[in-house]
């Protein structure tokens, strides 16, 4: 059964319902780009932006940042000289707040708010980098380009990268950001691939693109691989499996097989940065309002969601929901001050009447999750152990770590058990226990 998301987008997130005939597991598809490329809606530079740095301010290092410090456009902002985490300011202005900011899944950020001044004053460090591009420079300066390219995986000498996979598959339903970047930023993408090859020395580049969009990329400098649009075929794990030609064993990552994943927008940003001799700062975001009207928004990294809502004249009510990313594997936030981050592909609004609630019912063993699971995890058994808090057992005997985190099990669950949440919680708790043990030794 193909549930048509195209139909859903007209009505918003409450339309994705069970089809009348349900002999087989439901099959969801990611959306296609409209035939005519939509114009993106530009959001004006807001008066205030927020940059999130994935580090807490209390780690004992000397704080480099002070309230009132001036920042330039393109300036690297980090909490201390030693810290690896950083943000790149997309505006010129003054720091107004530095505060801890709790993120999704237990992540801790430091939020740096910058009041934007009228005059733009570009920082010179990128121009210097342009003269002598290197991988170290990319790790230090380009990690916060729109699309969030992870260059540090190329630095690991033990796991040399042989193949760069550029993922042009949108990671969830409703999102068209990656497909748009693939089509609209062809030129920058070509430049980006060239540059990537130069700084990493990797020759083999593969673009994973939707099956119906693989034509016309002959001169781009990479081979194109068509991927089925059925969700979750576009998740990196399943693409890696196709590129490698075999399953990725549990506990191994893509680097173990010489693969590095970069988002298509990240590579295009790289190309654009070199073309303009200044770091790209505009992020493409799929924005969908409560009624399912979808727009493509182009805005600078750091723009609070509030400003996007203002641009569309949209208000929020109590108990509405802001979803960052897609409806199946995104996360929700508690504040409309949440900024666009380099890896934010979509913002969805959900009305309080459409919010899908979970229940505390036990598993009734109907097996819908088992049939829908792309990783063939025995979810019906797994959830019993997770609900009992027996995480080790769940990992050992019921394949917790095979989970690809696509969210389909919770989506189909008749008892409306928050299975996906339990899985994430179990992984988080086991991860914490493991780091705790490592710290003890």
């Amino acid at each position: 059964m193909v549930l048509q998301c195209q139909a859903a987008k007209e009505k918003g997130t409450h339309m994705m319902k069970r089809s009348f005939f349900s002999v087989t597991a439901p099959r969801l598809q990611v959306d296609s780009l409209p035939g005519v490329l939509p114009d993106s809606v530009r959001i004006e530079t807001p008066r205030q932006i927020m940059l999130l740095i994935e580090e807490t301010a209390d780690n004992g290092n000397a704080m480099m940042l002070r309230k009132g410090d001036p920042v330039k456009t393109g300036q690297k902002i980090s909490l201390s000289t030693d810290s690896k985490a950083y943000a790149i300011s997309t505006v010129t202005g003054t720091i107004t707040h530095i505060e801890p900011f709790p993120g999704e899944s237990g992540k801790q950020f430091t939020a740096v708010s910058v009041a934007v001044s009228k005059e733009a004053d570009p920082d010179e460090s990128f121009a210097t980098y342009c003269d002598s591009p290197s991988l170290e420079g990319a790790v230090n300066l380009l990690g916060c380009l729109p699309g969030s390219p992870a260059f540090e995986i190329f630095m690991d000498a033990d796991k040399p990268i042989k193949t760069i996979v550029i993922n042009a598959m949108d990671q969830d339903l409703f999102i068209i950001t990656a497909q748009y970047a693939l089509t609209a930023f062809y030129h920058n993408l070509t430049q980006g691939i060239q540059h990537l090859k130069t700084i990493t020395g990797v020759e083999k580049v593969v673009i994973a693109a939707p099956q119906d969009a693989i034509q016309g990329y002959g001169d781009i400098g990479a081979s194109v691989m068509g991927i089925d649009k059925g969700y979750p075929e576009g998740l990196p794990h399943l693409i890696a499996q196709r590129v490698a030609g075999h399953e990725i064993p549990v506990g191994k990552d893509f680097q173990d097989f010489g693969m590095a994943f970069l988002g298509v927008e990240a590579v295009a940003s790289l190309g654009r940065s070199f073309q303009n001799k200044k770091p790209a700062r505009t992020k493409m975001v799929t924005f969908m309002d409560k009624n399912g009207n979808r727009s493509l928004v182009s805005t600078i990294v750091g723009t609070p969601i509030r400003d996007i809502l203002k641009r569309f004249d949209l208000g929020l009510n109590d108990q509405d929901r802001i979803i960052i990313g897609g409806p199946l594997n995104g996360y929700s936030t508690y504040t409309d001050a949440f900024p666009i981050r380099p890896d934010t592909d979509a913002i969805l609004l959900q009305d309080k009447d459409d919010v899908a609630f979970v229940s505390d019912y036990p598993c009734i063993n109907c097996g819908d999750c088992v049939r829908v699971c792309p990783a063939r995890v025995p979810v019906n058994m797994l959830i019993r152990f997770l609900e009992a808090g027996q995480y080790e057992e769940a990992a050992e005997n019921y394949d917790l770590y095979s989970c690809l985190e696509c969210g389909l099990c919770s989506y189909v669950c008749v008892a409306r058990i928050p299975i996906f949440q339990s899985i994430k919680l179990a992984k988080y708790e086991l991860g914490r226990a493991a780091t705790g043990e490592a710290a003890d030794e």
Partner: protein
Amino acid sequence: MNNPKKLIVSHAPFIHIGSSIPQMSLHIILAALPAVILGGMFRFGASAVAVVSFSIATAMLWEIAINLVSKKPVSVGDGNAAVIGLIFAMLLPATAPWWFVLTGTFIAIVIGKQIFGGMGSNPFNPVALAIAILMISWGDFLDFDEMYRHFQFDFIPTYPLTAVKHFGLDAIEPVRLMDLLLGRQIGGIGATFGIGLILGGVYLMIRGFIRWEISLSFLGGVFITALIFNIIDPSRFASPFFHLLTGYTLVAAFFLAPEDSSSPVNFIPMLIYGAVGGMMTILIRNIGAYVDGAILSILLINLLNPLLDKIRPKTLGKVA
């Protein structure tokens, strides 16, 4: 900023397919209604209505009672107790006494389901368990020939399975398959009307409320085993079609065997589960001591379920 809205934060996914347990229960009840109303109530009259109503009502009351006693939230709203009450009534004769129904629903709800932890935790089909215990304790009340003795029918009022077991094929010579399909036979309130049961079953299968693999392999198991017996000795063993349409076969295939909690979820286990159930039904009927083997074979495959479900595809990325 001065008056921030309180947004809902929860974990992904943010959409749901829309299915729910009450919806599932409702559709199972709907699917059973043709067989119960057309096959049972019109054929057997007001006493059938009384048994069905009392069975559903007592099943729900037992559920509420055990919820209160165990200080758990009242779960009668999920409809599962009503489903159990209805399916239980489908297997009873229309003349079943009130205490028989009351005891049966007690066994099904309390012993069959709730003491194991409620819906989803029962290792046996609650209805099959209740019928099996009643069959052993007060078997006479499930003897359909005896129970319908005072009824007037325009067809031969003998329970086909008893007839063929004790009097051989000659006794069922006048029974036409069409009669069985149209419910012109005696038996459980909801178990006689073949067409109604098949319609209900097909509806549940295409809507995905039951797993077609289990139902079809159960029927396949019945058919093939009966066919083998029939081929070996056509003078002693009835045709496979006869077995498909008599006794509890269709109810078992569509309403008992696919019960979620006590059945497997993987493809091959579902096929084995169903096929073994069908096969055992015929073995008990043809060479066993009991007239109808469906109930006991359901309990047997329930017992096999955890073992069978170990047969499953290798998980993604699992090494050896």
